[in-house]
């Protein structure tokens, strides 16, 4: 659901005078955006940084009089770009940390839930997808249409259609492969 913000009022007053509007955008979107960033990066600290940076950029855009017409879509686009940038400079330690966090989940009894294996299959299979494919699939899971995804990731609709097909196909193959081991 797109959050409605009185763009004219916010731009005219500046960010400080309408902090409530900015925070309303945050409150309406942070849960979806943080969960999306978490699934894309598979790293809690990185997801936190991405979401924070995306919203702080929104604040700066507002100050500059450029509050986007559709803040939610804008935030997703910024988060996707930030995730790509981060991936290019990802260090081995980040991957290692994510790996350990996945494995450590067995330690707490709170994590012992029936069906854990099935959910883990999807989560692990997502980890095998390239970043662009994972991002596109998760955007689709968050309710974005193919056309919207194309706009968010900066590809043509045709290329996005192929990317999403391969993402869904490869995800399914990985799940089936792991499930039958």
């Amino acid at each position, binding site marked *: 659901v797109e959050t409605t913000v009185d763009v004219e009022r916010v731009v005219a007053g500046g960010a400080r005078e309408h902090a409530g509007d900015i925070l309303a955008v945050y409150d309406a979107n942070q849960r979806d955006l943080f969960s999306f960033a978490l699934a894309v990066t598979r790293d809690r600290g990185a997801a936190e940084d991405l979401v924070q940076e995306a919203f702080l950029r929104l604040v700066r855009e507002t100050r500059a009089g450029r509050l986007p017409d559709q803040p939610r879509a804008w935030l997703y686009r910024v988060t996707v770009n930030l995730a790509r940038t981060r991936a290019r400079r990802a260090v081995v330690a980040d991957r290692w940390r994510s790996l350990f966090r996945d494995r450590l989940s067995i330690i707490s009894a709170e994590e012992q839930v*029936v069906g854990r294996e099935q959910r883990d299959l999807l989560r692990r299979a997502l980890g095998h997808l390239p970043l662009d494919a994972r991002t596109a699939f998760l955007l689709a*899971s968050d309710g974005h249409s193919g056309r919207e995804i194309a706009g968010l990731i900066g590809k043509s609709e045709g290329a996005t259609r192929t990317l999403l097909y391969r993402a869904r196909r490869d995800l399914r193959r990985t799940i089936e492969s792991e499930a039958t081991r």
Partner: protein
Amino acid sequence: MSGHDRFEQLAASSLDFPLSDAESAELREHLARCIACARFEAALRLDADAAATRPKENAPARVRAAISAEVMHREPWVTTRRIGQLTAALVVVVAVVGGGIVLSQRDQGPAHLGLRSFSPIPGSMPLGYGLITDVLPYGSQLLAAGGSQAGGTSSGAVWTSSDGLTWIQASSPLPIGGTIAFRLATDGQTIVALGEDCLPTGQTVCGISHIWRSEDGRSWTTVRSALGSCCGSGVGVGYIGLAHGRSAGFVLAGGAYALPASGGSLIGAAIATSPDGLAWHLASPSDPALRLGSIGGVVDGPAGLVAIGATRASPTTQDPYPTPSVWTSPDGTTWTRSFLSTASQDAVFLNDVAASPTLYVAAGRDGSSAATWVSSDGRSWRESPASPSLADGTVHRVVWLGDAFVAIGQSRFGDVGDGLAWVSTDGLSWTRLDTGTLLTGVEVLSVGEINSRLVLFGTDSNHAGAIVGLISGAP
């Protein structure tokens, strides 16, 4: 592209893009006569549903605070996490310059442990990126188990220390790469390590247990990688608890599950015993006393073995609040289950159990507070009273250190939060240890004692998962 590939692509695209009328008709007609493609199309929809309904969570409150501060004050932006790093770095400098941090003068448990002051273990960062998930006294040394990265690959690892300050990794990593060890136990001579692996070995799957054995803490052999398998094909066991005692020797405890290909449902609590760490006897998880249970911790104590965990209503119930349960046994062979009685209307989770010569202490969470329960016989339990020191936290581990119980956990359960540690002499009244900012953003995973000093290990979310160690007492 084969004919079937084209329809797979159409099936996938139909989830994201509107198909033309001709494409839709063509796809419908093909799916009606091609079972394989119809199954593929159905599986794609299941994957999409599973992803769309995956659990979502809020960003930490500090993100909103940072954005609010930026909006209101227009100060130069520094992320809250960067502030945390700077604060941590400052603390380290203070520790080095001042030779340690005296954080509180109030009572913090047994005086000989020096719990009023903590310092970073100087060598903890060079220990690398990974986890230290258990520590164990062994002779005059302290052993630490976990996993570390070497040469770009991961492996289970064991470190040794004679003073808690200097740690040496065992000469060779544990025999199976890509494995983490997370529990240790010893009878004074033989050491058993419990771990798990995500790599397939034979028919196993991620989470299946591995057991190693050592006579000196330096050289390790795999006991049986397939120990996790039990009860016929299609069943896997994930052990979580490991203990040693007079009642049954070494004891492993966890849960037995049907492998994903066989449905993935819970069968029951899994408990294996061994006199020497080599030959193991596994109780049937289908036993009425174990059925539909899963165990998080086990200990040998004054009245025999006690295991804690939860029992589910049915094998396939996605029940987030299973019934907290306790199992007792005089010998590791015969088990009796009882259900924890609690007046709380909130969800109760039991995560670990420890024992002194006279008392058992189970620990976990009651609603939004850390909580413990004490018992002299393992059957009748009394809950710790609510207190500010336990509020807004959860306990992951509890250990008995000779004259006090020490519990470790974290604030803001369900989020990374900050590491917490408590001390208690009776298991009911707990004092939160004042570690200043040394555990900010740190998940505390293990605790032990050497030379009358408390040692805490965790992983630092502000430093890409680097191992962090703290030691009590004068530097």
